[in-house]
């Protein structure tokens, strides 16, 4: 029996309560800044695209429109959740939750600085890849559960698109792994101390970035929600917080993909050069700056390029990226073996 007086010193405290408490605390330390970043990413997107199109963007709510994300959030929170009559109720509610949950759980393995990682697992990069490949279910379930033609078409487009681009993304990851010799994300970053991988692997870096755009359903690959023909696609039947969860999930996924790009190619938390003014800045700041840079590129692309036609999208994925990445994996392996650079 547990004696209430010695309970806190007991085995329960050290074995169960304390570890759970620390993990929950660390999770909050990751999720809260992430959600604030998501909120301000929506503002940054509108501001950046506004400036690129010679507009001002949101500038009414708060100074420089800084309170706009909260106004939007409050609006969505106060609206009525409408569940269509012919929909599959449970799945209809479950789909946005799944999208949002998946966009958060992936952050468990991202290293923010040397040793600053919640779960330093051996197969970190595979975990990230697995979670990002699960993202398609939120969309496909939403499209099917809505019982609407437009939503369903959007979901099918998205499923085909995400599966296609995962293939080339997988090969990009394999070619990085060949150099590093480990699936651990911290090891991948440490290996970039000599040179960031985007220099020797520049074509792979570009392909990874483009695949990340396709994987997050961002312009110019935002066919799942092509508003011109599908009236916003898979989320057309969603309202209020169910819609907000999709929205949050999509933006959190953008940040995650930027984080993956930073870890794989831009040296994670490492400073650009390891000398005095640069290596005094904490690694987490460098990591955030790199994520911000990649995110800016996401927004830049959206403001610049028109949407792809669907057959062009498929051609790019299967006939251009897949053969090229396959060739690059073989070439990387060949170079590593020929010069005896294989990681021991």
């Amino acid at each position: 029996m547990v004696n209430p007086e010695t309970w806190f010193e007991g085995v329960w405290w050290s074995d169960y309560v304390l570890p759970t408490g620390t993990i929950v605390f660390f999770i909050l330390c990751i999720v809260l800044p992430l959600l604030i970043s998501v909120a301000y990413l929506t503002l940054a997107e509108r501001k950046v695209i506004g400036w690129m199109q010679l507009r001002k963007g949101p500038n009414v709510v708060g100074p420089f429109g800084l309170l706009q994300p909260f106004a939007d959030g409050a609006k969505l929170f106060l609206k009525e959740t409408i569940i269509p009559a012919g929909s599959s109720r449970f799945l209809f509610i479950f789909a946005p939750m799944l999208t949002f949950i998946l966009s958060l759980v992936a952050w468990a393995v991202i290293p923010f600085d040397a040793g600053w990682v919640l779960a330093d697992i051996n197969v970190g990069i595979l975990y990230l890849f697995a979670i990002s490949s699960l993202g398609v279910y939120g969309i496909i379930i939403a499209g099917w559960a809505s019982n609407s033609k437009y939503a369903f078409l959007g979901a099918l487009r998205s499923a085909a698109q995400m599966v296609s681009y995962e293939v080339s993304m997988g090969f990009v990851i394999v070619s990085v792994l060949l150099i590093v010799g480990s699936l651990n994300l911290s090891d991948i970053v440490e290996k970039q101390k000599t040179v960031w991988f985007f220099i020797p692997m520049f074509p792979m870096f570009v392909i990874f970035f483009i695949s990340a755009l396709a994987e997050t359903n961002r312009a110019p690959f935002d066919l799942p929600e092509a508003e011109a023909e599908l009236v916003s696609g898979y989320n057309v039947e969603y309202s209020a917080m169910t819609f907000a969860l999709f929205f949050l999930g999509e933006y959190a996924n953008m940040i995650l993909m930027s984080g993956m790009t930073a870890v794989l190619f831009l040296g994670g938390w490492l400073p650009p050069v390891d000398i005095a003014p640069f290596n005094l800045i904490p690694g987490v700041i460098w990591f955030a700056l790199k994520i911000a840079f990649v995110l800016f590129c996401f927004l830049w692309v959206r403001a610049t390029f028109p949407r792809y036609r669907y057959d062009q999208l498929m051609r790019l994925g299967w006939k251009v990226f897949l053969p090229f990445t396959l060739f690059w994996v073989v070439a990387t392996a060949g170079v590593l073996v020929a010069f005896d650079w294989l990681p021991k």
Partner: protein
Amino acid sequence: MVVQALAFYLFAAVTVACGVMVITARNPVHAVLFLILAFFNAAGLFVLQGAEFLAMILVIVYVGAVAVLFLFVVMMLDVNFAELRAGFAKYLPIGAVISLILLVELVLLGAGWAFNSETAVIASSPTPPAADVHNTEALGMLLYTKYVYLFQGAGMILLVAMVGAIVLTHRVRAGVKRQRIGDQVARSSKDEVKVVKVQTGSGI
């Protein structure tokens, strides 16, 4: 250890329950979703066994790709399930025979392992401590050295299956307009645009 045991029973129970739901669910899409949940829990069981590489590959390959395509097909199908159920009694004997054969094979496999005289020798052979060798590395070492021909053979069989599927379903249709990216890129304004000075009122 208590937590591990609890996690095991949770994953195992959900996997079995999902397996039952796959064959009893009325809606085929729900059945596929239960199948996905079963895959996911099986991955959880792999993690508990310390086989994290297999767990991740299970999620990436089966949940992330195979089941997506499966779901895709099932959603597009327009099958009448009352009609399908009508044939249930007709196909029951053959189904029972197949499942019986599978059961016998599984029992034989288990018995063969348990009663084999070499089992004790294999089980007692030295294994490196789990902290030294990651299971990704261990699997790679085994697949690409000892079983390399079998591994390559399996790969070739899959490639042949893929090529076969494409050959069987690909039809050459006449009169299809295709975009040729090469031709489009090779065009230039010099070859395609003719600038003509037209006298006012005379036309071309």
